[in-house]
């Protein structure tokens, strides 16, 4: 049995659902799924991981007193070595973007981020390049293999198993020259774009910061995340972390709603893999209208309040 390491992430004490899709993608007869859980009480996670076929949970405990990417990456490398793991899969999430390249650098191992397809036996993956304009097939060689998966490319399927939990204490080297002063959270990032199933984004058509409330009002009913075009960000209406596109977040939701967004090539680069795209725009000739699944030629200031009302009355 080849052990496959899964780097598990949590949000609000719960395992991120995209991790279950990752486990599903990694599962095979000849493999053992080993969940690596860093500085989070692993016992709470055990049952959820077992449901998706994990048979070992490594409960990594570092002395870092909270988030520290340098220490966490070193701990993951040590846990991989202890457990004979040469293949590690994580998400291309904010945490994954910090930890996976640090792990790969330490091991001098190949790493491909944002994989949309992974063949663990052939060490071959597909990922988008040139801002989503091409799909590259990349083969990796080496003694270790690190993969960053795009969230939501594989739907989670249960496969119940029983897991053992192993404690793995880790003490960091002193004098690394890297120190965490603090982590500040303002609570606004409750839903991270890259892992959201539904995203409603606004652009120049929103006209100001206050009007983004129209998007947040709809999003609340759907547990959706709110995104933005670069124009909305550059105008200071919303923070940069909400920017979707080539120089923003790349998203892969089930539904993407583009509201008052023209659909520039750089915006498409961030959302073109969305399953269903719905565009709302006053201009029937906007680029987004020619490359979406549904379009509404209309004024967002009419449509959004009506949509909010309709969503509020949906029975679920």
């Amino acid at each position, binding site marked *: 049995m080849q052990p496959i390491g899964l780097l598990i992430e949590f949000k609000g004490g719960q395992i991120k659902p995209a991790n279950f899709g990752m486990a599903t993608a990694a599962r095979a007869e000849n493999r053992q799924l080993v969940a690596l859980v860093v500085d989070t009480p692993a016992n709470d996670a055990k049952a959820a991981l077992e449901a998706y076929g994990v048979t070992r949970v490594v409960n990594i405990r570092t002395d870092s007193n909270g988030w520290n990417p340098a220490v966490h990456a070193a701990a993951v490398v040590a846990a991989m070595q202890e457990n004979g793991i040469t293949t590690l899969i994580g998400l291309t999430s904010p945490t994954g973007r910090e930890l996976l390249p640090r792990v790969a650098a330490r091991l001098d191992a190949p790493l491909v981020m944002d994989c949309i397809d992974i063949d663990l036996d052939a060490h071959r993956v597909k990922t988008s390049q040139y801002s989503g304009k091409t*799909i590259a097939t990349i083969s990796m060689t080496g003694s270790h293999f690190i993969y960053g998966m795009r969230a939501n490319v594989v739907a989670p399927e249960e496969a119940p198993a029983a897991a053992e939990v192993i404690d793995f204490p880790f003490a960091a080297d002193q004098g690394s020259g890297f120190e965490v002063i603090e*982590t500040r959270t303002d609570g606004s990032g409750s839903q991270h774009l890259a892992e959201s199933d539904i995203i409603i984004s606004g652009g120049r058509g929103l006209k100001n910061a206050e009007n983004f409330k129209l998007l947040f009002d709809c999003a609340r009913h759907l547990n959706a995340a709110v995104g933005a075009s670069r124009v909305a960000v550059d105008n200071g209406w919303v923070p940069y*972390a909400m920017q979707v596109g080539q120089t923003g977040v790349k998203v892969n939701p089930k539904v993407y709603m583009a509201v008052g967004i023209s659909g520039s090539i750089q915006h498409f680069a961030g959302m073109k893999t969305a399953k269903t*795209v719905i565009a709302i725009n006053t201009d029937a000739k906007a680029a987004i209208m020619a490359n979406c699944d549904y379009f509404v030629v209309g004024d967002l200031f009419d449509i959004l309040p009506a*949509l909010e*009302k309709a969503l509020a009355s949906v029975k679920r």
Partner: protein
Amino acid sequence: MNIYVCVKHVPDSAATITVEGDNAINEKITWLMNPYDEHALTEAARIKAAGKAVEIVAVCLGKPAAENTLRSAMAMGADRSILIETDQYHDSIITARALAAAIRKDGTPWIIFTGKESIDSEGMQTQFRLAQHLGLPVATNVIKINADSGGVTVECEREAGTIDVYRMAAPCVVGAGKGLNNPNYPTFPDIVRSRKKPVKRIDLAEQAIDRPAAGMQIRELVPAVEQRTPKALAGSAADIAAQIVDILKNEAKVI
């Protein structure tokens, strides 16, 4: 003490990419400096302008045409530059080795800037590998930096609403994020002045880098085709809202 800025020569984000052969693109398009590297360069210039006595050196691994990006870097404030010349595409395992070797040979770094990612290969990793080779601390997606001779204090945007503050001892590697600054695009006199600044060319083959046992090879490159067939939703605002709810419920199955 030098500030090194790693700049990559990449296709313009608006360029039409066409595939040639199995795994290459038609390179007869507009090429520019990687957008995140512009933020890195702007920040280096800002630190220098604040009176810190440093020399800014731009470094690039690329084909001969990458000299254009180094010229832009010098117009944006780099004092000189190094082009590690090659005629091939290289993965980030080789790239980081080449950049590390060139910087090590050239001088004493104080801060080494990179961008947080390149927009062509979208690797998201070169800065970490570079730091590992040089044994230095590294932070990425940096949106604020305070530098002193002992090191830097950086703010990194991890995700919406979450900022990490790190202290790194100098020398260190800093991956610039978009929130760091507004790029300082050169004026015509800047461009004229940059023409006189030196570009040192070194051949990758002559760089003393070890041959890595690991690698990433592009086997195939295909255009991403996903032309959708748009359908119009019409009627009153309430009708349209009802149709959207129906799509969310019955087609996308998200409610």
